[in-house]
Structures are given as structure tokens and as C-alpha cells.
């Protein structure tokens, strides 16, 4: 079963710039002696939602940060819309939701959105951002006064306010209750329906299964499976595949 999925990883399609939003091509990234990514290939097609799945320390966040231009690859190529994302002006078509421990607390929700919108050439109207992110009624609250779920929605608003073509969502629903998670899923699906490309990292198999066109599983910095949720399920249930691949099957659940 494992080897069947590995075969799919090896037969990845060749890169095509016209249909590709972002890609890592045999990218290696190390931190000292620690290998975070080991000749990893990853591509996000236009209009596609790719879920990057893997245990802690697998290299998910490193892959995302390389595509955001926050890190420099040791080897290989990183491309976003055919360009190097390390240049700030090349990031006008991307938006990001990262795991931020502390956001300036004495700015209002509206002010945070206003500032991030100013970075982009064609931002969405404020009312639309507030509506999509579900922030009606709390626009004038200070960030520090918000609940955990509301804070998470503000970070989502900052990711989408510039009307980007490509979104990076790093564990966007972590810490949300079931209802809030479903609400965010709905918004993410709506963005895909508009033709946006999305790379989403997650720990939740259910989330990857519910949202993704394609699931990429990585572990120890290597892509070990790459396919549609249906393809993954042909081999076994997705969860069994994931657990088998990451060597967690022996853990009690």
C-alpha cells in the first residue's frame, strides 16, 4: 500500500508555468545539520486547493515560508507566478495567514484591514472583507478585545483583503471550535469557486479530505504521497494511509 502511493509521488506531472501558481522544484532546505526539506517537489495549479499534510516537523511550514519568500532555499528553485517570491513587489498576488502569537492589540479590526489593504494594488472593499471573514459588528473593536476565534478570523481577513490570486493558509482552523471551523471551510470553498489557488497546511485529515483537490503528504522533508482524496482512498482510508506513511499507526487514538 505504501509503495503504491510512493509511485504516484514519483510520477508527478512536469511543471507548466501557464497553469501553475506556485512550485518548489527539488528544493532542499537545512537548518544547521537538520534537514527540513530534502529535494522536495511541490506544485499548486491555478484554481487548485492543495492540502499539505504531515506530522509536526515534517517540513510543511518550511515549504510554505519558502513560497512566501521568508526563507531562501539551499538548493532548487522556488517560483510563485513564475517569479522569485523573495522580492516584496512579487508578492502582490499572494496573501498569507500564518500562525502569529501576538498581533498589535491596540489597533481596531478595521484599522488592521485598512493597513494590509494598502499594500495591494487592487484590494477588496472593506465591507466585503468584513463580510467574507465574518467580522460584522466587531470592526471597531480593538484586536486585544477579541476572542480567539475572532482573532483567527481577522488574520484570515488580512490574508484575503488584497484580493490575491494565491493564498497560503498555515493551519488556519487551529484552535477553532467545530462551528467556526465549518464556517471557515465554507469561505475557503467560496474562494476556490472564484478561481483562487490555495496552499493549506493542516494536521486534520478531515480538513484535507473536505477541502482539497489534491493532498500532498510530507514527512522528514520528503513528499511521500501526492494525489486526489479519491486516489488516496483507493489504497486505503485516507487516515490509515496517513498514519501508515508517517509511522504513527501504533499510537493510541
Amino acid at each position, binding site marked *: 500500500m505504501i509503495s503504491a502511493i510512493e509511485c504516484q509521488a514519483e510520477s508527478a506531472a512536469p511543471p507548466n508555468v501557464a497553469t501553475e501558481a506556485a512550485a518548489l522544484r527539488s528544493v532542499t532546505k537545512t537548518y544547521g545539520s537538520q534537514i527540513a526539506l530534502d529535494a522536495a517537489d511541490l506544485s499548486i495549479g491555478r484554481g487548485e486547493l492543495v492540502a499539505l499534510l504531515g506530522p509536526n516537523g515534517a517540513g510543511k511550514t518550511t515549504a510554505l515560508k519558502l513560497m512566501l519568500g521568508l526563507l531562501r532555499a539551499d538548493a532548487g528553485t522556488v517560483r510563485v507566478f513564475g517569479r522569485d517570491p523573495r522580492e516584496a513587489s512579487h508578492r502582490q498576488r499572494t496573501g498569507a495567514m500564518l500562525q502569529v502569537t501576538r498581533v498589535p492589540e491596540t489597533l481596531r479590526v478595521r484599522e488592521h484591514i485598512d493597513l494590509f489593504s494598502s*499594500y495591494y494594488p487592487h484590494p477588496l472593499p472593506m465591507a466585503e472583507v468584513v463580510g467574507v471573514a465574518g467580522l460584522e459588528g466587531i470592526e471597531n473593536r480593538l484586536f486585544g478585545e477579541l476572542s480567539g476565534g475572532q482573532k483567527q478570523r481577522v488574520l484570515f481577513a488580512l490574508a484575503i483583503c488584497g484580493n490575491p490570486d494565491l493564498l497560503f493558509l498555515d493551519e488556519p482552523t487551529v484552535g477553532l471550535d467545530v462551528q467556526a471551523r465549518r464556517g471557515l471551510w465554507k469561505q475557503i470553498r467560496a474562494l476556490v469557486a472564484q478561481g483562487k489557488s490555495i496552499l493549506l497546511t493542516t494536521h486534520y485529515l478531515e480538513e484535507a479530505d473536505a477541502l482539497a483537490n489534491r493532498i500532498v503528504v510530507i514527512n522528514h522533508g520528503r513528499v511521500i504521497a501526492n494525489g486526489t482524496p479519491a486516489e488516496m482512498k483507493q489504497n486505503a482510508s485516507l487516515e490509515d494511509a496517513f498514519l501508515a506513511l508517517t509511522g504513527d499507526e501504533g499510537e493510541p487514538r
Partner: protein
Amino acid sequence: MTATIYFKEAKYEFVRRLRVRAFVLGTLGFPLMFYVLFGLLMNQSFGPIRMSTYLLATYGVFGVGGVCLFGFAVSLAIERGLGWLELKQASPMPPAAYFVAKLIACILFSIVYIALLLALGFGFGHVQLSLLDVLRLFAVLIAGAIPFGAFGLVLGYLANATSAPSFVNMIYLPMSFCSGLWMPFQFLPKVVRQIAPFLPTYHLSELSIAVVRGDRNNGTLAHWEALAAFTLVFIGLAALLQRRDASRNNGLL
């Protein structure tokens, strides 16, 4: 469009700090209180000028230095330590806007501080300065925002998010004492007076004292040169620390 980004970045940097009571009280309130105690309540003749006039110059330096060191160091330490800076760097914001906004916010706070200090001195301390000298004092102190902002950058890269305010105090308070910002320089022990020329606070203080004393062309060039040299060294150090920070594995893979 780029001008709009710089404007909004600076505006919100100022506004959000203005809403933090600890920042306003700590950086404006404390130095003003010390000026009231030592400059106004103990107001006596001091050579050709009154103590209230002399200390107007040195507490001007103390306040502006504090505004800039805390403004840069504490916010930078928190923002780089807890993920906010990274989200900004992942956005299309021009990187310079982040630092320019902090400098502008510090200059605005400095202007407010100097205005309040002058109001106290003129209102209650029998300070007599010509309008031209008042403007000269503003110019000298605001120019001081540049070396102290650069110094704040260095401290912001050295400090960690939780201990930044104490870290800055541990460095800034002894430095202020040794430069004669709290009590006239002549009253300090000889060994302290020998250390002072190695501190930027001393040079800015000498320039401000020259203004309130009415000294013209009295060796001020050397102090300007020293401040310029400090600025270059601090910016170089900050750039080195920034590169170290960027290449370091923050424990996230």
C-alpha cells in the same frame, strides 16, 4: 500608492502606541516627572543659567532617547519574536516602510514630549529662551531620534519579546546617568565623566546644552560627528543581527 503605504504604516504605528498607557506613561510621563522634581522644585541658579533651563536640555535628551529606544527596541523584539513581523514580511509591504514608520512615530512622540517639557519649563521654571533657540532645541533633539532609533534597532534584535522593556532599562538608565542627563555633568565623579564620551547620550546632551546656554560654534562639530559615527555603527550592527535572525532556525520547521 507607495506613499499611501508609508503614511498608513506611520499613522497606525503612532496611533497604536498612543493607546498603550504603559508606553505613554513610561516614555513621556516619567521623564516629565523627573524634570518637575529636579528642574522645577530644585530650581536654582547654575552658572549663567538656571537649573530649570540647563535640565530642559538634558531631560529633553533623556525623553527623546527613551521614546526612540523603547519605540524601536520593545516593539521590534515583540514583533520579531511572536510572528507579527513575519506576517508583514510575507506581505507585499515594502520592507523599508516598517522601519520608516517606526522612526516617524518616534519623532512624533518626541515632538509631543519636547512641547510638554517646554510648556513646563516656561510655565513654572522661569525658562527664558528665544523662539530661535526653542526651534534649535527642537531640531537638535529630533535629529537625535536617528542615532537613538538605530540604537533601538540593535537592542530590538538582541532582546527577546518578554524581557525587552527591562533589557532596555538596564542599558538606558545607567547610560543616562553617566551622560549627566539627570544631574549636571560637573557633579558626576571623574571616572564617570571619562566614560561619557563613549555614549551617544553624552554627545546629544552637549549639543542641547550648547543651545540653551547660547554657545555658538563651540566645538559642536565633534559631537555631530560622534553621533553620525554612532548611527553608522548601530545600523551596521542591526544589519548583521538582522541577517543572523533571518538565517536562524526559529525552532519552526
